């Protein structure tokens, strides 16, 4: 790699990062608006207009940026920025709009699923640290709840990610099974047998239930719990710092949605329709946005409208016992798919029944 190439890569990264920052924030806020509108309709309200999140951010920018006297100023200010920045960097590694991830296509440097898992922790971590740094009892309670929630949901999340990669590593000819380009190139739905299919559905279901906690949405929003601890870890935040957290939430929704799409629905419309060049790109982007919409509708909007908030120990219990078991069942299904189904697959069942 000579100097020119390094410079070229560097410029690509810089431009890509800039573009993604803008796209991520705009699309994230847009989906937030859609989510609010649909939730309102479900509850029989008219709801705010789609551009309401943008207005909210503008309003927050105008408000005063209060730094409480109990806060550690530099940690208090740095936390929201770090959270937002880390969230946007995840977008670099995700395949957006059906294209390979930015870092995949252009340069050799790639990130993998474990990296995304860890980067996803940083925004939550930033919220926790910000909450702790506010020096207010409400914020502290909220922050420690967020941390407990994080411990809780990472267990099933780890199961999902490791199971998928493990199953993929058994497929002939795959290398780098943790990289998203491999995962999107070989969708598991077509590879596994019937039992594995059930396992995948279970894992998808688990991931859908993990998502609201990752985004601290109802029913897993006890860290914020407006009615009991008055906004929890965000209680001391105001003005532009709060706006940063607001944006983080929007971008993170986009990230989680994209992750689910990439892991479970990496299909594109254009090969099916036989399209090429610009039309293909446009169709793919539209299709991707539609997929994203469905995922967010199910994993965020529907759940948050229909279920009431859980207590913090219930959250931990939910994730560590029923959901972990569910994830493990999914994993076991995938494992058995490999051993049992090759011997007792559809073919042999049909044989046994005398159909063939």
């Amino acid at each position, binding site marked *: 790699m000579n100097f020119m190439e390094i410079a070229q890569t560097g410029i690509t990264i810089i431009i890509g990062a800039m573009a993604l920052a803008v796209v991520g924030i705009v699309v994230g806020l847009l989906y937030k608006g859609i989510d609010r509108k649909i939730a309102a309709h479900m509850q029989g309200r008219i709801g705010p207009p789609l551009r309401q999140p943008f207005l909210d951010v503008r309003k927050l920018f105008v408000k005063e940026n209060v730094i409480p006297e109990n806060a*550690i100023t530099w*940690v208090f200010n740095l936390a929201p920025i770090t959270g937002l920045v880390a969230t946007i960097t995840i977008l670099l590694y995700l395949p957006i709009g059906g294209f390979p991830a930015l870092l995949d296509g252009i340069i050799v440097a790639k990130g993998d699923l*474990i990296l995304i898992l860890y980067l996803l922790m940083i925004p939550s971590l930033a919220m926790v640290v910000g909450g*702790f740094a506010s*020096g207010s009892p409400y914020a502290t309670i909220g922050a420690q709840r967020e*941390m407990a929630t*994080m*411990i809780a949901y990472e267990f099933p999340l780890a199961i999902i990610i490791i199971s998928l990669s493990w199953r993929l590593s058994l497929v002939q000819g795959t290398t780098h099974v943790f990289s998203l380009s491999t995962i999107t190139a070989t969708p598991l739905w077509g590879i596994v047998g019937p039992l594995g299919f059930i396992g995948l559905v279970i894992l998808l279901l688990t991931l859908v239930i993990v998502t609201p906690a990752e985004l601290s949405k109802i029913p897993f929003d006890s860290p914020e719990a407006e009615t009991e601890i008055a906004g929890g870890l965000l209680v001391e935040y105001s003005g532009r710092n709060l706006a940063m957290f607001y944006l983080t939430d929007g971008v993170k929704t986009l990230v989680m949605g994209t992750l689910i799409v990439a892991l479970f629905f990496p299909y594109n419309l254009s090969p099916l329709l036989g399209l090429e060049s610009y039309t293909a790109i446009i169709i793919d982007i539209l299709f991707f946005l539609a997929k994203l919409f469905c995922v967010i509708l199910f994993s965020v909007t529907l759940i948050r409208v229909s279920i009431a908030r859980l207590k913090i120990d219930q959250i931990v219990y939910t994730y560590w016992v029923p959901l972990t078991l569910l994830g493990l069942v999914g994993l076991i299904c995938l494992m058995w798919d490999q051993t049992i189904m090759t011997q007792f697959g559809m073919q042999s069942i049909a044989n046994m029944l005398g159909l063939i």
Partner: protein
Amino acid sequence: MNFLDQLLSHAPALLVAIPLLGAFLTPLIGRVNDKLRNIFVIGILGFTGILVILLAQQIFASGPITYVFGSLDPYVGKETVIRILFEIDALSIFMAMIAIVLSFSAALYSWAYMEKNTGLDKYYSLLLLLTVGMLGMVLTGDMFNFFVFLEITSIASCALIAFYINKVKSVEAGFKYIVVSTIGALFVLMAIALLYGQYDALNIAKLADSITFSFVDKIALVLLIAALAMKGGIVPMHMWLPDAYSRAPASVSLILIGTTQAGLYGVFRVLFTLYGNVITLPTISMGWALVILGLLTMLVGVIMALIQIDFKRLIAYGAIAELGYMFLGVGTCLTILANPDITLAQAPFAFEALKGGLFHVFNDALDVGLLFMVAGAVYYATKETSLNRLGGLARNMKYTTIFFIIGLLAISGIPPMNGFASKLLIYESTYQLNPILSIIAILSSIMLLAIFIKVFHAAFLGPKLPQFDTVKEVPRSMLLAMGFIAAFIIIFGLFPDLIVNTIVDPAANALIDNAGYMRWLIGG
């Protein structure tokens, strides 16, 4: 042959001889001047460090070195190998680097940290002796020598743990440590005697060459593994570790990490090299034993750490959890090696796991070391270790806070710190043995994050507490020591590929390359 070559050719002996000599000179120099003594100790350790680096360069370039004491030839007559010799391969020098980095920064840190104590001449002597013990354990190629250095390490570290002799808890911790480590060492000696009785040799290479895995060998294996794992603080034999780490002065806790890791080195050496030729024979693979002990270590470590309220005790449990990762990584490799149906080439993940485990040894020493130094700094500034009484220190101790954040991110493996690189290697290889292993490893890493975030809140964040109004930032020597380790953490984190290729990969290769270790014995 110029002076440098001369020096280098005797470097293995000098590595042990220089700190040993320094240890006994320290009290003499201490009579002259305290400052001179500190400079002397740091100089001795710095010089040893340079020798380690020079030797490492040579070994990475041209393979293992056999240094025979008192002769050029390890043989007496044709068959007998009774000479004491140092057998230094890439793994030994890798461990020696860890030991020397830790002791050097501990000496630097002690300058200000221990300044107000009396009996410092003895303290520095013991510190150098402890370094001798650690270096000897990792460099030696002789089982009995290993035992002697093990005992030197135990005695020196026991005396250092009980350094605050007027505090009864320190004495208690020292007593527990010496009981546990003496019993461990006696069982090691018993195992050595068993092997010696059978094969008439004490040399590791010679023993490894002739071992047959007879009834007696099995007993010896169990005694060695159990005793050395106890020295390494593996659950459920870990209970001495939090006692010892939390009651010792912070600078001593820092070196104690090195001694526990020397114990782990013993485990790896025994399993891979001493029993390397008969690795496939145990009925249940020892690799699975290591993996399961590793998982237990992780889980018990994190759960116990989460409920601690004493700063150093909490870090000690965190350190235990980290030890589990090493066992997991190395154990995964061992299961594959021990499986006669699969060769290492068919399962490339096993080697990756081994690299991850060994890389994590270094990373753990750095991360936990930094955190112990931060805990010591907080104690130095506030005279308080209970997290229930601390708070709001980020205002007064800005640099310490930044170092703590670095340590926190590193130990919980948040990118881009060094902990992430080694954990990534472990996660992305062990899952192929069994997915559950990786899942539990990820889970404990997240719990480690929660543990240290709790410390971050309790000690550094929160409102300004009136009792800590006058707290000042710690002296420069302590900051320098913390910065030294933090620099390592950041470099290891930013260039993982470079580090893995230059030092970890040769070490991992040396561990599985039995023929290379016995090169002088089987011809060459």
